């Protein structure tokens, strides 16, 4: 038999109808729904008198709009209406909803894995581009628009043209202080923000095998920032250990049976990808983005690039526009860039390990004067566990704000935004113009680097911060 990639195995298993023109109707195993991209889909069902075909495969939560100071006090009337609309839609169509009262509420891409809804081999969609996160479990997971949300609600299927495959081979061993976030920022800086367009990316190699599930989620989460349709990692013992005992994962004997099935979910020896990219993580420093897309990243020990150093006129112009927006000068050391805001959160970096890494930096230190620093846990479960570990105290003692869960300042749809012209060291995934607020300047970093920036008031190699402190205590 011809060797198959992980993607092909999952795809082939989900084809309901195959057409000669390369299109296939594929079955969806899990449909995650949130308040912002679903109202028009439910409206469409109502207009056409259609039902939700498989409410049992559909799960909803509210995350994008939710205030994180007091989630029950929605000051924005239109946002409030959207939240209420989701609750009404879930009730009318029989869909399970983790609402603001639920102990399971949180960012949709945090709670799916946390509850064990996300499993190897599943096809997973959500009206959100960061659905790629779930691929960390060896699922085929991708973001869709609202029309497709409606389509999945009505039919539990989607028409898809079979995407191409791309292997991103992560080789080498990360230096201490270099995180999964730095790895994916490095991959995108090297290959561009559209290297994955039309492709499903599978991350392979020792450097991904040695990552925890949460680290793999960070990597797959940002596969979309490289343009990929989806990101994936073949499941292994790390995956199975993560899922065992999770509320919605198979239990007991059924779990063992599932593991046997999941073990077959890997790319076969000799399987051919349409494209292969190799990235050596051993040479990587902690990364900081300097521009207005996630590919504009560089080592924290580097300097703001000179637009004239880029190869094409289009790139040179894009770099000039980015520097003008960001208020940066070519040649400026990254560590000279001061920040006024720090955001630790988002579907990229709001899980327990992220908060632990940030807390380790914050412990016993103080946020610099003039810096506002927010920590927004990805889910209620994350928040509660962090509080059991005393991380909330560490952050609060250091002068960080400890917030309720939600998407928050990643896209600033709720009241958490960066004021015009100010900078933010952010653990989120997009540094587009205006993303965190009009004229806001976003620099993407890892949780440890964000915490270090909060303490120093400017970007600093988190490894240096450790050394400074060690030197001071001698």
């Amino acid at each position, binding site marked *: 038999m011809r060797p198959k990639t992980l993607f092909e195995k999952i795809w082939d298993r989900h084809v*309901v*109808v195959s*057409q000669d*023109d*390369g*299109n296939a*109707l594929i*079955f969806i195993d899990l449909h995650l729904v949130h308040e*912002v*991209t679903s*109202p*028009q889909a439910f*409206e469409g069902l109502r207009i056409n008198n*259609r039902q939700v*075909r498989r409410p049992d495969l559909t799960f909803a939560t509210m995350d*994008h*709009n939710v205030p994180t100071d007091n989630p029950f006090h929605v000051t*924005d009337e*239109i*946002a409030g*209406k*959207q939240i209420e*609309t989701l609750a009404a839609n879930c009730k009318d169509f029989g869909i399970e909803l983790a609402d603001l009262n639920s102990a399971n509420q949180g960012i949709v891409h945090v709670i799916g894995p946390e509850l064990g809804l996300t499993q190897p081999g599943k096809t997973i969609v959500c*009206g*959100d*581009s960061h659905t790629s996160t779930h691929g960390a479990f060896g699922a085929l997971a991708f*973001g*869709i*628009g*609202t*029309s*497709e949300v409606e*389509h999945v609600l*009505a*039919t*539990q*299927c989607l*028409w898809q*043209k079979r*995407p191409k495959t791309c292997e991103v081979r992560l080789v080498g061993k990360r230096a201490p202080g270099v995180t999964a976030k730095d790895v994916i920022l490095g991959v995108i800086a090297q290959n561009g*923000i*559209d290297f994955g*367009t*039309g492709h499903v990316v599978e991350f392979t190699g020792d450097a991904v095998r040695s990552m925890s599930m949460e680290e793999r989620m960070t990597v797959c989460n940002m596969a979309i920032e490289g*343009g990929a*349709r989806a990101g994936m990692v073949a499941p292994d013992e790390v995956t199975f250990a993560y899922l065992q005992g999770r509320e919605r994962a198979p239990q007991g004997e059924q779990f063992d049976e599932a593991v046997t099935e999941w073990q077959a979910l890997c790319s076969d020896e000799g399987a051919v990808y349409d494209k292969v990219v190799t990235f050596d993580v051993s040479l990587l420093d902690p990364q900081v983005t300097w521009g207005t*897309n996630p590919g504009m990243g560089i080592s924290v020990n580097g300097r703001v690039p000179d637009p004239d150093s880029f190869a094409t006129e*289009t*790139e040179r112009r*894009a770099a000039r526009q980015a520097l003008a927006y960001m208020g940066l000068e070519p040649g400026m050391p990254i560590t000279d860039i001061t920040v006024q805001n720090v955001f630790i959160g988002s579907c990229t970096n709001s899980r327990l390990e992220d908060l632990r890494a940030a807390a380790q930096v914050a412990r016993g230190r103080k946020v610099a004067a003039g810096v506002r620093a927010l920590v927004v846990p990805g889910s209620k479960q994350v928040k509660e566990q962090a509080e059991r570990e005393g991380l909330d105290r560490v952050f609060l003692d250091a002068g960080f704000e400890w917030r309720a869960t939600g998407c928050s300042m990643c*896209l600033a*749809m709720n009241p958490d935004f960066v004021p*015009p012209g100010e900078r933010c060291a952010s653990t989120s995934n*997009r540094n*587009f*113009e*205006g*993303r965190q607020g*009009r*004229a806001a300047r976003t620099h993407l970093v890892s949780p440890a680097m964000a915490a270090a920036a909060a303490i120093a008031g400017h970007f600093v190699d988190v490894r240096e911060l450790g050394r400074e402190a060690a030197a001071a205590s001698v």
Partner: protein
Amino acid sequence: MEPFVRLTGKVALMDRVNVDTDQIIPKQFLKRIERTGFGQYLFYDWRFREDGSVNEAFELNQPQSQGATILVAKHNFGCGSSREHAAWALGDYGFRVILAPSFADIFFNNCFKNGLLPITLPDRAIDHIFAQGARDSAFELTVDLEAQTVSDGALWQVGFEVDPRRRYNLLNGLDDIGITLQYEAEISAYEERRRTG
């Protein structure tokens, strides 16, 4: 969905790469629960200054762009967020066609669901359109989905590729769900196989 067969219209030129959906429709406008009325917010932070006044320097505010139904841009148009509001805003503003050398996947998909035709053209063709547009502010193009051509009505014409299924649906204004529901038996059989298998 409104069918798309062919269209002759004015061209708006946007000489930018990596135009992301956060720019096409900023997040503060995603809170509405309707599908319509997003055109007024299209490219909001670029069209309007912070005080709400019109930013004349922005491409779509220039006189030659007024009434344009065809938007021409550079590589990786529509990258970022999956928000279909981006397609709704472009359509509601008056665009029916977007021409670029490449598009981001989710945005590209979303366009077809809303009677908006995204066409991938070679760099050479896009450069030609930019050059023509710079010379003639009343420049028009004809986009023919049936014949799969873009032409300037005189000497210049270029063909384009489009997925046959998407082409058919767009030509006929067909909604995907209606078509898929005709496969009810296949979907049920698949579900049954998975249950027992």
